[in-house]
């Protein structure tokens, strides 16, 4: 099954994927807040995060994650459309957003616009 592989080391934080997603899901509309992928920035790095469902399990198993010598709170790049953060929730309706692996074949729209290879379509 094809999946989107995320390599945060390659992400430049240009947020083109956010707009690709927004344009693909809401007709003729560019708005990162309506995207199902967001670039989460921390210190000197960028983390592309694809949105997913909000389940209790993610919160109860929360722990610190270590990347490149830095310790991060798991919330910093959690994919859940949870009420704690303003990401992945439609501002006007409050509907939670979830990545639906969209796009013009053969690749989801965010992957097509990601030029650095941070997002890649891979076969399992």
């Amino acid at each position, binding site marked *: 099954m094809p999946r989107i592989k995320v390599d945060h080391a390659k992400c430049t934080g*240009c*947020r*083109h994927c956010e707009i690709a997603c927004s*344009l693909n899901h809401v007709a003729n509309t*560019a708005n*990162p807040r309506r995207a199902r992928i967001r670039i989460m920035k921390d210190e*000197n790095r960028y983390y592309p995060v694809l949105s997913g469902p909000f389940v209790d399990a993610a919160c109860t198993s929360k722990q610190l994650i270590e990347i490149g010598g830095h310790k991060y709170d798991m919330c910093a790049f959690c994919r859940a459309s949870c009420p704690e953060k303003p990401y992945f929730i439609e501002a006007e309706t409050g509907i939670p957003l979830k990545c639906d692996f969209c796009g013009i074949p053969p690749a989801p729209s965010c992957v097509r616009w990601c*030029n650095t290879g941070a997002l890649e379509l891979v076969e399992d």
Partner: protein
Amino acid sequence: MNGWVGRCLRVNLTEGKHSIEELVPESREKFLGGRGLGVKVYADEVPPQTDPLSPDNKLIFSSGPLVGTGAVTGASCNVVTKSSLSGTIACAKMRGHFGAEMKYAGFDMIIVEGKAESPVILSIMDDKIRLVSALEYWGRSTSETEDRFKASLGDQWTARETFLATIGPAGERLLPIANIVNDRFLSVGGAGIGAVMGSKNLKAVAVKGQHSLEVSDGNRFVQVVNTMINKLNSSPLTSQSMTQWGTAFLVGLCYPKKILPNNNFLQASVSLKNLGTDALESAFALRSRGCFACPVACIKKTEMKHHIYEGKGMVPTYLAIGSLGLNCGISDLSTIGTASMLCAEAGLDPVAAGGTLATAMELVEKKVTTKDELKIDLQFGNDNSLLEALQLISTKKGHAKRMGQGAKALAESFERPDLFMGVKGMSMAPFDPRAIQGMGLHFATCNYGPHHLYGYTFIDELLGVNENLDPLTTEGKPALVKLYQDTTAVMDSLGLCNWPLMGLKFKNFVPLINSCLGTNYTADDLLSIGERVWNAERLFNVKAGIDGSHDKLPARFTEEPISCGNGEGQVSMVNEMLPEYYSLRGWSGQGVPLAETLKTLELEDS
């Protein structure tokens, strides 16, 4: 609204009030947005004789219609005002994410008027427009201001989505060589604007919002973007050189052609071996950072490890290596990197600051002054004194105070105006006009001082992207200069970055523009808008007293030939090219737009 938000925010700092206005559709058609519309609004509202630092001057932040829509490289916001360094109109370019966020915050344009009683930050967050007291931020460096302001917002999510444009201590002290810094360490291209912001007691502008932007034909737009990304990837300049090293890759190309100046344009020999791309990679661990919607990502960040500056920083660009490095006789990348970080932290313009120090160094070398008089051991190639001087300039202490006024004022105070290397009061970007004739003509004629970011002639003269032109010849150069000046003006007005012109032709942008804005422009239509913008700027300058008599390069370039190597014996032929350039532009022999030119361009001379 197809690209535009259609709203403009007007903030009066004297009264502490703001109002929201609609952008006039007619001016949008004629000037597009960004730089063009900014210049139009500015020239309509501010009398040309206004003192740049008085409360009567205005400061305009203007994003183009393509910014934030996902258009390839649509990220640029222009800062339009009257420059306190040159007295000309300033239309400085801002990169990064500020421009796009400004549109999501709901405004194409922010006009700042008057002067606040005490320091403030203009905060435009989720439709709440406030003036926040900036007393605790005053005197702080640009990155510290950004960090503290973001920390004051309460939660990490809001902080991440907020973008700031701020001035540093240099702007607060009204130094003409100050500029604005946005998105942490990104210098806005051009000096003379930081002091204007400082004179208004405005420390920073913060933006965040969630407005949506509309695109006219989404399906077509997405396809065009796909094509453009592929095109950028098939050009080695945009897919390899820029992506890997940023603009610093130009150093290796310009040096052997004698285009890269050294020692205040004196052409002494400095070794290149420490400055090429290999040296850059061994000096810094490079990591790309992209401006909004940019597939190229030419900005390089790194961890700096220098005893004066440690921590997150930027890898020096071509501009920094030229202006703060070679032109001051310095070839140590770690010093140059530190110098450019000191500039970003203090809010100094690297070109203006580098030009000033190079002039000071030549004054010492020519024995016009001594190191004892300057109280700093300034001489070409002295790393430590360069860093020391940069730290002193922004504090406005002792003799460094004189340097804060810019290279022209410094050279004149020692009665050696001939040692100032610049035009219209602004120091020259690191391109030697003798070795690259078209750029020399552009430097002389540019409305906003000698800056390569307003006329990318080197794309053909040096890189040979569209046509392979010899940089040393003058044939066809006036037309080339006009073409690139107009192209740049229209790209800035749309909010597009100009660097992709290394991999794309201007006509490749036309379908992108039309599918986004729902228009039917041809490339020629757009270029004539660019010409209109260029003429509107010129008109403002002429009324402000800066006409063709200021389109002059320093005597060094027309009288002292290149001493050896490539282009030996060559001087700048700018004075020979000027008449042809003026006639192509439809200007008088004094560089003033003729009445019929203004009529063709639908510019009324009031």
